[in-house]
């Protein structure tokens, strides 16, 4: 139809594009609706506890979380409804109300099961237990300064029922921890940070390509890194005695960050040639040769990896010279040490290769030391 309209020279129906756009929008809406649960836009399973709904109904926090303000822990039978005051299987120090506490208002429960089975986000209790284990914090001491207004810190309630744990910046509104922060003394509030798995949320967030970014950030914040990471964390990659690639040691975690992830063995030569020197930032130059030799890829009796015409007169297609300038670390990975004599046999004054130094070359090394003395045996400039 459209083709005919073009041939006839008549304009296509004006509603065509709009119609297609509308159809696409409808399809997109349907797809989004269908996937809303998967994307987390809607919840079909257990919901976070509706704190916001209770707060706006005028129910004070301590009416349910009895004893959290430090005015005594709820003894058996003293909690609203006469229950124990805390849910079964939940540490009493968390002050999580039990079903009897809920029943003081919700007289006719719609389900005989425990309330928190459905009215608590999955893993919420586990997160609280972990927070209590790794944070030095006492709600009781904060009750008086906040005059019982829990929402002075738990401001997230105003926005919804997720993320009720206040961010660290909330603490700094009242507490002056500048000295502790400057001294990286996180243990005034945090216990065992290495084990918590917490990640920075605002600054130095470990997002995007953090693997590349971390070196630049750590350069000026190394002491900050040490507040969460142990020595092993750096040594796992940067150590000279790494037992196995981190990706190999954690093969069952496909989301662990590693430059050697997945099929790195197949593509490593492409990556190495595209980023000259990148391997050298962690590995000793002879690492390539050692690995290739142990795997039988290089070494005596093996075919040279260089194409025909690799070494030739300067006037010809002298590929090796160009590649050596491009990535000398790649040459050094095989030819360093004893292999250097191969280069020096041509690259010497009077030799066919001429001087290997570029124009304007300078060095502070004494001519009598290695590698200068390979070409300058008399210790003098030629």
């Amino acid at each position, binding site marked *: 139809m459209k083709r005919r309209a073009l041939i006839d020279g008549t304009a296509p129906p004006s509603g065509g594009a709009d119609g297609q756009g509308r159809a696409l929008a409808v399809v997109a809406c349907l797809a989004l609706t269908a996937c809303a649960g998967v*994307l987390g836009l809607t919840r079909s399973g257990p919901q976070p506890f509706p704190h916001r709904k209770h707060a706006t109904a005028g129910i004070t926090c301590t009416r349910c979380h009895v004893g959290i303000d430090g005015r005594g822990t709820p003894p058996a039978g003293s909690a609203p409804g006469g229950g124990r005051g805390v849910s079964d299987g939940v540490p009493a120090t968390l002050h999580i109300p039990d079903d009897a506490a809920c029943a003081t208002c919700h007289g006719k429960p719609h389900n005989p099961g425990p309330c928190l089975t459905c009215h608590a986000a999955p893993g919420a209790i586990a997160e609280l237990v972990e927070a209590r284990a790794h944070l030095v914090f006492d709600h009781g001491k904060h009750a008086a300064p906040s005059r019982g207004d829990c929402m002075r810190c738990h401001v997230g309630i105003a926005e919804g029922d997720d993320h009720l744990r206040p961010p660290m*910046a909330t603490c700094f509104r009242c507490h002056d921890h500048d000295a*502790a922060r*400057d*001294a*990286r*003394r996180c243990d005034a509030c945090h216990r065992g940070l290495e084990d918590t798995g917490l990640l920075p949320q*605002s*600054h130095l967030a470990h*997002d*995007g*390509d953090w693997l590349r970014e971390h070196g630049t*950030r750590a*350069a*000026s*914040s*190394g002491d900050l890194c040490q507040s969460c990471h*142990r*020595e092993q964390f*750096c*040594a796992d990659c*940067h*150590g*000279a*005695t*790494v*037992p*196995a690639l981190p990706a*190999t*040691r954690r*093969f*069952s*975690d*496909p*989301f662990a960050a590693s430059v050697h992830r*997945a*099929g790195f*063995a197949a*593509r490593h030569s*492409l990556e190495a*040639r*595209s980023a*000259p*020197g990148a391997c050298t*930032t962690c590995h000793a*130059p002879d690492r390539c040769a050692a690995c290739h030799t*142990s795997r039988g*890829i290089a070494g005596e009796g093996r075919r040279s990896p260089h194409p025909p015409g690799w070494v030739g007169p300067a006037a010809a297609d002298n590929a090796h010279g*160009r590649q*050596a300038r491009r990535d*000398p*670390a790649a*040459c*050094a990975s095989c*030819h*360093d040490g004893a292999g250097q004599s191969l280069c020096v046999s041509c690259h010497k004054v009077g030799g066919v290769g001429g001087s*290997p*130094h570029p124009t304007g070359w300078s*060095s502070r090394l004494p001519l009598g030391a290695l*590698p200068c003395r390979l070409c300058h045996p008399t210790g003098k400039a030629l």
Partner: protein
Amino acid sequence: MTRALATAAIAVITAGGRADAGPLQLRGDALATTAAPAGLLTLEAHGEPGPGLSAEAVVWIASANDESRGDVLVIAVRARTAEGRASARIGRFVESLGALRPVHVDGAAVRVRLPHAFTVETYGGLPVLPGLATGRSWNWAAGGRVARTVGEAGSLGVAYAQQREHGRLTSEELGVDAGAALGRRDDIGARFAYDLANPGIAEVAVSASHRSGALRTELYLGHRAASHLLPATSLFSVLGDVPAQRGGVVATWRCAPRLDVIADLGARRVDRDVAPEATLRARLRLDDRGASALTAELRRDGVGDDTWTGARGSARIALPRQLAVTTELELVLADHDRGSGALWPWGLAALGWDDGTWQAAVAVEASASPQDRHRVDVLGQLGRRWDVR
């Protein structure tokens, strides 16, 4: 020396008994694979006998092709004064001094905070060589850094380090680093390393990021001269190479509560070759805690004759009884066939179990690469951790 350090570390790690001592954490992992190394046993220990004092050790032994070897990755004791004004480390550890490259040493490092927001840190020791090597005469590495806090959350530092091998200078570098948090949403960091042995810029990196709600963007630039990263004793360090550059923008967007999208768009330059590079990655958590998740990634990379396109997908599905099944697939298509194929698939399927104390996993890995037309390996892992009070 290593034996003395090990004795000291073990003494500190096991010196419990104080009321405020943390638990002694022990961990052992055994990895077996049909690819080398065929077997690997790793033992880790970490303890905090008291406030400001900690020690850790990681040792391993591997066996492949009827050969066994073992080594020490870390044996270090770390101490800090109560107010955090001074800290020290002794043992085998990785020292990262400002803009200079990390170095694995057997030695000691000290950091002291001085008045007027200055910090001084220094280290010295023997560069670690694999294989418990001894008799390293006149091998040493030493360096220092002076930094000053700028404003509330900024820092500027200057570092110097040199290494010698058999008394010969192998590396002498000067580094400058800077970093700052600008307001509540912006970070900036930069490092600059200059080779003093064969004068020239070795490496420069700049990163600036901005966070706005669910979107974080980072601008990065890098410059690297490979010849200045080689030991000065190497003939290849005197060639005077053509530096390589890289730059781009990374955007991380949490576009739905469980969906993150990361896009990296940049370019590389090596000699006269310039090529664009792009990565698009998405991660979908299938539950609120991310115990089950899917990722998909498309990537275009490389420069000159080494360009390639790749796709990767991975999944982790949590099962009942602390079981999880994971799978990872990758397909790489090189633009140029060098006689060893241009299509390299790789795949791994694993079943893991983790009850917090015990971890076990078994996997099958299959691949084709320029080295192997096809290859299948089996991997198995068993680990256990102990908290001893």
